[in-house]
């Protein structure tokens, strides 16, 4: 049984300008100890997916319209608040893109680090502080016993992200959701943070959901990848298959638009147009208006996720029908 099983999740935002279908019927699962990458451009629904699981969608205007997120036998979307609180923050933890806005600037990091322990475990403040110092050392902050009394602004961006990670991991979660944790960082610091996440994952044996728009980051870190577009999953496969034999035209287009994958100075491949306006119902395949392979039926029929192999699924009608093949 997978650690987390999400089925037909739909999270919509009811705004004055219409119903914005940010996540519209997605299903996926995460096994214990594995790393799942969720890739997509801004507005594709990757963050909202995770916010829904964590109960962080602002309601209103957001509303979870349907679906289930079963974590170890408990449906996080349907269970009582009380039961959800024993899981969120303890067994499922989350880190965010911007460590400055997700740490409280008025509190010393010691107070912020012990908070999850004091809430979720029967532990004295003193023992909790001891664990917090040990955790800070674990994530590579030297002189932790002294620096634990610092305020967030006294750390650099990379160090703050380490504090965030320490805070998320202090309860030894089984699942870590990382929402673009390295996007705001320099490449050299990004390499440090990715290495840290990899090491902590090995030590704690936890599963990781890694949200990013950077295919490069995914390739070294994730076991499986799913690509999202306009609130739906368009392709899911193990990492090698996504990179070596992508089946969905969007996945292919995304890969081809990275400068590193193309000869220097050549005209870069671009995807024409823009993602659809999600406040109107999308008819047919959401990518069809920008797809070079779109046929008549792509604009009418909504594709489902079909399995090419048991581990590789994609939502392209033409590839499914066999009248379009990619090598």
């Amino acid at each position, binding site marked *: 049984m997978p650690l987390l099983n999400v089925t037909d999740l739909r999270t919509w935002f009811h705004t004055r300008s219409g119903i914005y279908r940010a996540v519209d019927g997605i299903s996926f699962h995460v096994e214990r100890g594995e790393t799942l990458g969720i890739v997509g451009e801004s507005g594709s629904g990757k963050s909202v997916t995770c916010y829904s699981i964590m109960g962080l969608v602002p309601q209103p205007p957001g509303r979870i319209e349907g679906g289930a997120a079963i974590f170890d036998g408990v449906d996080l979307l349907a269970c009582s608040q009380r039961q959800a609180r024993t899981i969120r923050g303890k067994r499922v933890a989350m880190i965010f893109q911007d460590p400055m806005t997700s740490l409280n600037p008025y509190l010393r990091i010691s107070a912020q680090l012990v908070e999850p322990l004091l809430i979720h475990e029967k532990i004295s403040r003193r023992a909790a502080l001891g664990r917090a110092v040990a955790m800070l050392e674990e994530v590579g902050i030297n002189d932790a016993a002294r620096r634990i009394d610092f305020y967030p602004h006294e750390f650099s961006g990379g160090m703050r992200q380490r504090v965030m990670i320490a805070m998320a991991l202090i309860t030894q979660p089984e699942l870590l959701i990382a929402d673009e944790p390295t996007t705001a960082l320099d*490449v050299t610091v990004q390499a440090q943070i990715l290495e840290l996440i990899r090491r902590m994952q090995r030590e704690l044996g936890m599963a990781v959901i890694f949200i990013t728009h950077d295919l490069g980051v995914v*390739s070294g870190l994730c076991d499986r990848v799913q690509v999202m577009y306009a609130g739906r999953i368009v392709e899911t496969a193990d990492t090698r298959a996504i*990179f070596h034999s992508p089946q969905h035209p969007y996945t292919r287009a995304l890969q081809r638009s*990275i*400068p590193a994958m193309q000869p220097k100075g050549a005209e*870069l491949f671009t995807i024409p147009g823009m993602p659809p306006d999600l406040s109107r119902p999308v008819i047919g395949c959401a990518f069809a208006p920008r797809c070079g392979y779109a046929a008549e039926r792509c604009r009418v029929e909504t594709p489902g996720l079909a399995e090419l192999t048991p581990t590789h699924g994609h939502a392209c009608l033409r590839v499914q029908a066999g009248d379009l093949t990619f090598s």
Partner: protein
Amino acid sequence: MADPILELTDVRTHFPVHSGFVMRRETGSVKAVDGVTLSVERGEVLGLVGESGCGKSTLARTIMQLVPATSGTVVLNGRNLATCSPDEILGARRAMQMVFQDPYASLNPRLTVHATLAEPLRVHRLRRPEDVDARVTELMELVGLAPRFRRKYPHEFSGGQRQRIAIARALALEPKVIIADEPVSALDVSIQAQILNLLSQLRREMDLSLIFIAHDLSVVKHISDRIAVMYLGKIVELGPAVDVIERPRHPYTRALVSAIPTADPDVERTRQRIVLAGDPPSPLHPPEGCPFHPRCAYALEKCKAAVPPLIADTPGRVVACVRLDEI
């Protein structure tokens, strides 16, 4: 070198640091740019890379005369900007234009596209009032925006389109040099490719010189002819783009290059990465000698003794490392 449009000689930009409230006095200085010498040829794209805080944006602002240089000279088209009269500076500004990272912040939200593009024409009296309309149309077409959108406001456009408006505004004065400070960092991959293509195309068609600042090395390699690598206010390596990225010589460039994740899972899983320890040192208290020595794996005693000069390496390449021949 044949025909440089822009020449910098030993440019330094230091910001004084004050402390004390009653007895306010100067206690030090941040050496944001500390002795940069480089030239940009006509029609050349010079990439400028480095971590945040290395001084690349300050260098751009110093070239633009937006912050005064502490010492050194900036020569544009044979004219030393430091000794120019304010009138001449205005003329020089016409020849140099800047495109900023955040197209949300760099466009006036209260001005329509038309007003944004017409303003520089009016300020510099480049067109008679009756010809302004035609020029705005021309500029919008040049950057791939439909002229019928001229009465719209910035918030009605997507990020990529806003960046096109910013580029059109820079082109309005027919500059010789464009300084683009992280112009694609805030954009999604597919949009990023469109903007990169636009910049390459404009440069070809209008014989522009471009200083392209970014932290994403694969983007810089793609668009640049030469690349300069900055660390703590100094250039540590400068050479042909492909050489610098594929055969980096300075230990810092090597670490930087090895930190870029590649979009190939097989390569990514096997390669050795140089993970730099710690953050860049504070420019307020730069280390003695080579600025990189505290983080460098090859540092010796002599590296702490003196600031290494830029040494000529292979043709067209200079590297600031005293151990260049040994490592």
